[in-house]
């Protein structure tokens, strides 16, 4: 009996060590996704991109016009929320661009061209584009007459947080609402043609 007890301790330790090791596996399609416990992750940002971009495409489905499809320049997302987007940001850019390219009645100008044109014109901030002369310079660099963008797409991520401190027998709770709003701006006047947003709320406990 004593021998069994003696063997139990190293076995238990071995089990604990084994449990701490790294593993990886391919998740099945449709399998549930991990919800981050301190910050938003794929689930949240996928939802935001899906909601906002689909709404934008639907809302902007303007009637067919004789001068051909709208030329759209997606020029980025401004992060105004409490959390850094880290590796989410480039992925969000790609996803939005992919949806715009494949679903809407648009001709989407390459974001690389857009970024390069912004550099060429010397625009550091997105808001610089709301000055008419900057916009004219930007559209001028993007192309002449029928090649310049008709519409600029611009996004903003925001968060709103509600916090509740726990007591002796309850945990601290934090609710955070994440939103991604996308707006379509008339490239020639700077007015907002349409604005939509996607939202998701997450409750964190600690």
């Amino acid at each position, binding site marked *: 009996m*004593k021998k069994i*007890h*003696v063997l*139990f*301790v190293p076995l*238990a330790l071995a089990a604990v060590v084994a449990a701490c090791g790294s593993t990886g596996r391919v998740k099945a399609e*449709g*399998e*549930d*996704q*991990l*919800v981050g*416990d301190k910050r938003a992750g794929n*689930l949240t940002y*996928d*939802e935001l991109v*899906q909601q906002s971009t*689909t709404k934008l495409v639907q809302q902007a489905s*303007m*009637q*067919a*016009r*004789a*001068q*051909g*499809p*709208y030329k759209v320049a997606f020029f980025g997302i401004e992060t105004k929320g409490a959390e850094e987007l880290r590796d989410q940001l480039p992925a969000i850019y790609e996803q939005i661009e*992919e*949806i715009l*390219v*494949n*679903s809407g009645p648009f001709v989407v100008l390459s974001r690389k061209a857009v970024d390069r044109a912004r550099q060429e014109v010397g625009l550091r901030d997105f808001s610089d584009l709301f000055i008419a002369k900057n916009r004219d310079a930007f*559209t*001028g660099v993007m192309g*002449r*007459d*029928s090649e*310049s963008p008709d519409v600029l797409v611009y996004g903003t991520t925001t968060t709103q947080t509600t916090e509740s401190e726990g007591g002796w027998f309850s*945990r601290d709770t934090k609710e955070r609402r994440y939103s991604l709003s996308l707006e379509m701006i*008339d490239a*020639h*006047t700077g007015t907002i*043609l349409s604005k939509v947003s996607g939202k998701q709320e997450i409750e964190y*406990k*600690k």
Partner: protein
Amino acid sequence: MTPSTNRPFRRIAMSFSPTAFASIGLFLLAACQTEVFGGKDTYSSRVETTDYAQEKIDAGPRKIDVWGPGQKDPAAEPVARFSDAVMHLNPKPASVAVLPLVTYDLRTNKPWVSEMGVGTADAVARALKEQGFAGQAFDTADAGVRLAEANIARSSFLTLEQVAANAHRLGADVVVFGTIKRRDRVGALDRDVLTCELQAYDVPGRRIATSTRWEIPSDDTSYRQAWDLAQAENAWAGDSRYAMPSGSPGLAAELQRLSDDLASALASKIDPAKIEGSIYVAPLDVAAFVPQLATLRSAQGAYASEISRRADEARANNEHLDSSGTIVLDGTEYPSFQAAEAHMTKLGTAYQATPAARFAQSFSSGLADALRARTAPAGRAVNDLAAVGPVDRALIDGELSQGGLAKSFAARDALRAGGVGLVVAPRLERIGDTYQIRVDAYELANGSLAGGAAAPIAPALVTELERALGR
């Protein structure tokens, strides 16, 4: 103490009962898996994302957006109406030059010419021919050739004002010009409108003889083809992105054209058969721009005035011209006419060394050539005063520079003695920023001004002209 109890690990292990071990294990497991001592990973249903790219792939190969049937030509009816109006203009034009419609679009920083602009203009020329227009109808290609001949850049015909200013050079009675203006968001956010206008400019009458306008809205998809053409640039305009090599106006060609124009204008006012003697074409007077020439002309003027005074005096007293005594030129007293002439020769040499002198002489040679061609078979235009003596030449140059040739009997007499019947005196003038060449023709028989003409130099060539004058 047994040997086994000496081992610390065993001693610790032995001090716990199996139940305690199990309890600790279960506690740790619970701590990790429940919310008592921290969190547990939570999972939520995956967001259902639509794969738009895959949907497109599934839908088959991407279809190219073709125009399809039911496309309309918005200009058909207005062009027919317009060409009919041009046909019935009063007075009837003998020739019509049609220029492309020019696009004004705030997206671009200057007017430009679209495929639709050229197409519509050519449609007007075609309609005129089809409707039996008796005169000449120049389409955009013909007009381009004529512009090159007239030494005008195509880009100088992009506004109505420029058309009005240069239309006479095209040599057509009516110049058809048009505009296409793009207005965005007309009535709706996504509705743009092209407003097209055709205008017929009556060149002799200096007025818009007739015009018509029509609109092409973008919410009518039967105008897709029209919009496509309206957004595509044509190579007609010289400064288009096609960067087509085109004849650019040059000063030499401009002066040739000016000489031809001035000679034609003079030839219509003078009768070559009535000219007693040859036509002397004086060097172009550029005194207003060359200080050396101004000094020379001033001295010649004073000299001419003194000679004329003495000649008139001698004639009144029925004596020979008194060429002795002092003479004052430009405030300096010279002891004799010879000394004064020597001074003028020096001034003349200084002037001859300037680029302006060569320019003036070459223009006059060109003008003499043009006059010779137009006064044939009389054709006696000459550039030099070989048969006139140096004293008389100074007198003549002086009177010419002061516009006194008509009243100076002595100068006229000297010229007539040299076999000259008509003097053509060209002068370069500057009015504001505009340069023009004026030509006066003096008939020596009765000392009257036989005729005159003026022709402006294209503003684009002013820089080259100033270089030629050595300024």
